[in-house]
């Protein structure tokens, strides 16, 4: 065994747009973007191919602005289910080289190739081999960051592999002083715009400045700005800057039981009436309970959150309540959620609503209380049936009547994954 690990972070270039270009060869030489539905508020660019980016199109800008810059732009509606399938396919290709593959997002995955590298040659050779295979089998160009830790592999990819010609960059710890440490602090992983401003104010304009600050000194500096509880963040950033990260590539990371199950929705317009918001709460509750039942959980703590429509003048709340007994029956959870809504909503228009259930326990056995609501068993039987119908024919096959009354979003939501079309 080598004493140092060899870790890859593979990042797919303009993932959604690349998938679409691969399945539409006629657009190969045209600028392509994947964009949400312009009629609803989700009309933003989700992904732009390199040709579109050359013309100044940026991810997350409005479709209208992109079309103004690039009139010949090909706009494609997202197909989320397909992107998930392709991502899964890529995971399986990676698994041909090592069983240690951990998806980090839909287009980024970690691989630990320490144990199988001797079969393929140098890390660069292996990365290049996988890169060519992916291009041939999926039509997607992938960039590889290579290092001894996950955090360095990630920064090798973001700061170097994405910008060089081969799309492969190896960043050993020994080279940090001449490479990563020379970069400005905003290129540090996890450093957002606010944190960057703070680092500048602390006199740490480069990653190296942060890395070379002794940890106790950094903790002191951060305590002065953020208060007593900033020690962990100080250590986190200090470790990232020094490339210290012993976290293992963890393939089975999703096999652990979730701590909570929640759903959140951004509404197509502002909802200002209690009755309207209640419909959304019911639909979200139904989804949450459906997922809990599917996984075999009941929950005891219900949380409801609402975010106000006015982003300048933030309003809204996020509150939770504990039930007498854990449950996954929609009506019971809904009842508690509506109580929270009625108590805490200030009456101002709402843009985003979320419902979640935590305090999860196994639902294969539950305590029957002495004064049990006799309808509970019937509700469970009914929901088992509707869940099976939905699993087989799609979420919109059977709906509550209120969902059809105009304010409901269930039909629309059933056609989407992560807020974008399936």
């Amino acid at each position, binding site marked *: 065994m080598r004493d140092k690990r060899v870790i890859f972070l593979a990042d797919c270039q303009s993932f959604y747009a690349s998938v679409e270009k691969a399945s539409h060869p006629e657009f190969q030489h045209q600028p392509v973007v994947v964009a949400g539905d312009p009629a609803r508020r989700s009309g933003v660019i989700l992904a732009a191919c390199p040709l579109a980016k050359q013309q100044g199109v940026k991810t997350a800008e409005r479709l209208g602005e992109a079309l103004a810059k690039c009139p010949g732009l090909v706009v494609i509606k997202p197909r*989320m*289910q397909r992107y*998930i*399938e392709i*991502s*899964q396919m890529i*995971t*399986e290709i990676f698994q041909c080289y090592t069983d240690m593959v*951990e*998806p*980090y*997002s*839909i287009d980024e995955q*970690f691989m630990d190739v320490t144990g199988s590298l001797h079969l393929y040659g140098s890390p660069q050779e292996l990365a290049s081999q996988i890169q060519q295979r992916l291009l041939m089998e999926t039509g997607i160009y992938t960039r590889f960051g290579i290092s001894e830790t*996950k*955090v360095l592999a990630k920064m090798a990819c973001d700061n170097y592999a994405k910008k060089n010609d081969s799309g492969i960059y190896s960043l050993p710890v020994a080279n940090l002083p001449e490479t990563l440490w020379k970069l400005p602090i905003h290129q540090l992983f*996890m450093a957002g715009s606010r944190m960057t401003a703070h680092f500048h104010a602390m006199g740490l304009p480069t990653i190296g400045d942060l890395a070379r600050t002794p940890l106790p000194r950094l903790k002191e500096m951060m305590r002065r700005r953020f208060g007593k*509880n900033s020690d*962990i*963040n100080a*250590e*986190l950033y200090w*470790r990232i800057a020094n490339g210290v*990260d012993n*976290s*293992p590539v*963890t*393939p*089975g*990371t*999703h*096999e652990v039981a979730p701590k909570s199950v929640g759903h959140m929705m951004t509404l197509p317009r502002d909802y200002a009436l209690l009755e309207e918001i209640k419909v959304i709460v019911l639909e979200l509750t139904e989804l949450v309970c459906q*997922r809990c039942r599917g996984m075999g959980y009941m929950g005891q703590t219900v949380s409801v959150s609402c975010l106000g429509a006015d982003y300048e003048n933030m309003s809204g709340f996020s509150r939770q309540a504990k039930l007498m007994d854990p449950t996954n029956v929609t009506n019971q959870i809904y009842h508690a959620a509506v109580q929270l809504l009625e108590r805490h909503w200030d009456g101002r228009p709402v843009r985003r609503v979320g419902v979640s259930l935590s305090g999860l326990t196994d639902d294969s056995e539950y305590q029957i209380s002495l004064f049990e609501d006799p309808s509970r068993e019937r509700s469970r039987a009914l929901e088992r049936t509707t869940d099976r119908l939905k699993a087989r024919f799609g979420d919109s096959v059977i709906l509550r009547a209120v969902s059809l009354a105009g304010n409901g979003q269930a039909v629309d939501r059933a056609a989407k*994954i*992560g807020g974008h079309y399936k």
Partner: protein
Amino acid sequence: MRKKLEGNGLWESSRMMLPEHKESNLRKRQELKRRERRQLDEQELEEAERLLSSSLEARRVVRIAMFHPYEQTEVIGIVERIDTLQQRFMVDGEWFALRDVQGVAAESLDA
């Protein structure tokens, strides 16, 4: 907060994955663990038969490897009944299908 510095915490707390993607990932991983039912050859069948009936007759403890699509399972005990008509056997009051038998070994008593 401390969790970010331990185990895989940094990546768990910053991961961006759709629930649908996680579920598909889980399903695939489960499928990877799927086992095939092994066909026993003639000699193995004969040996299994001999050990099962000797357990029944002499009340000897045996260790029976059983098929399960995702798990490694074993039945350890004394065979109490064998029902050739329904192709099943009983250990400790519970029926098991004979076609799930993947191997039988005599259990040494001094273990």
